[in-house]
């Protein structure tokens, strides 16, 4: 049967880009549809009525939403170049760290970016502790997935690419090589991979976009 795979996403979203990466890693041909989130398409609203968000994968007309749910689905349907390990305990660890990145690290990072005074100190320390936990998970391995990239690496691309970029724009020193030498080694290794670079937002465009967003957020809070 002819497969129909569509991905509704946005070029700047790490959640959308991780799905592109998973599909490309597995060599799955797909149609990409860029959404304008200020003017959501009828298709997006039809395929993800609950959250009205991207990414949404539509496989033979059946929609799947929530990026980590999509990643697992992709891994089950196309089982070449597996993303998740086979062993149930290793799978649990991968899911744990995936959850940790999206539910903890990202939120703390946002708070650390915009907090002021004493609160900033506390949140920065919290961020440091969290990122240390993540760094320790590498434990001498090239990637979280071992010798090749896996589920956690794919989710953690947001740390590899988006975190340093935001840091550059804000001019802060919360996420540095000095503080996280092992994590930065992993960042170097993962950003050398061709397919990872095929799936990242173009740098200049991304920088300009993040700058504009941060300006927008700063002036909105004043």
């Amino acid at each position, binding site marked *: 049967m002819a497969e129909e795979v569509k991905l509704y996403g946005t070029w700047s979203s790490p959640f959308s880009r991780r799905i592109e990466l998973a599909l490309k890693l597995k060599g799955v041909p797909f149609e990409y549809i860029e959404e304008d989130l200020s003017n959501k398409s009828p298709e997006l609203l039809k395929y993800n009525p609950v959250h009205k968000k991207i990414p949404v994968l539509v496989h033979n007309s*059946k929609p799947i939403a*929530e990026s980590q749910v999509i990643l697992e689905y992709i891994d*089950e349907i196309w089982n070449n170049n597996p993303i998740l390990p086979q062993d149930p305990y290793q799978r*649990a660890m991968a899911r744990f760290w995936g959850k940790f990145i999206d539910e903890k690290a990202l939120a703390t990072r946002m708070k650390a970016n915009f907090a002021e005074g004493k609160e900033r100190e506390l949140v920065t320390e919290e961020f440091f502790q969290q990122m240390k936990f993540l760094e320790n998970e590498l434990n001498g391995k090239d990637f979280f997935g071992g010798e090749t990239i896996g589920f956690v690496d794919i989710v953690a691309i947001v740390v590899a690419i988006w975190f340093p970029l935001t840091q550059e724009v804000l001019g802060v020193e919360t996420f540095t090589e000095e503080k996280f030498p092992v994590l930065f080694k992993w960042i170097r290794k993962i950003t050398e991979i061709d397919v990872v670079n095929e799936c990242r937002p173009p740098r200049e465009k991304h920088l300009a976009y993040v700058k504009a967003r941060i300006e927008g957020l700063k002036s909105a809070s004043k």
Partner: protein
Amino acid sequence: MAEEVKLLTTWSSPFALRVVWALKLKGVQFDSIEEDLSNKSPLLLQYNPVHKKIPVLVHNGKPISESLVILEYVDETWRQYPLLPDGPYDRARAHFWAKFSDDKVSPSIWGVFIKQGKEREEAFDQIFENLKFLEEELKGKRFFGGEKIGFADLALGWIAERVCVLEEIIGVKIVEEEKFPLVSAWMQEFVKVPIIKESLPPHEKLVTKIRGIREKFLGAA
């Protein structure tokens, strides 16, 4: 090999309850270790250094945290009474609703529980939005898992187990039968399932505890 299954838990945690339900449905023997969260044990800190929370499942010395991650592990390790359906698409749907429970439904109900006045009215709007989706999902089904309870039911089960307690404390109905007949029916069916029924925390004790939490929260606000 002799299995060693321990669950670090508290009697009142809805997250721990999910794991208890899963283990019992699969007939897995386990030891419960009651934690005092105001005085966390060295064991808990060792097994869950990242979050320092319960539940933690320890299987042959290896710890797993985060209730939904634990549920998946339990389902993959003990294959009797499968919690997740067979097909990848249906599995993705189950995962989606489990996430929806924790990301959307839970905060919205907590919102109604701790807010007052106009803020509470708005929180109710949020709940109704969420319940509408659940109502839709239950069309033609007895449980989210179909004929039997499954992964999504266990994830959403706290609604059936706990909402009546919250309603009793705030004196307001949160899930009205006329508005959400399918969700209401599901709630009643869910707590009637023998494994679920026998695992429910003692009602009065739970009301007292949660009332206390609410008062502390409102007092601090």
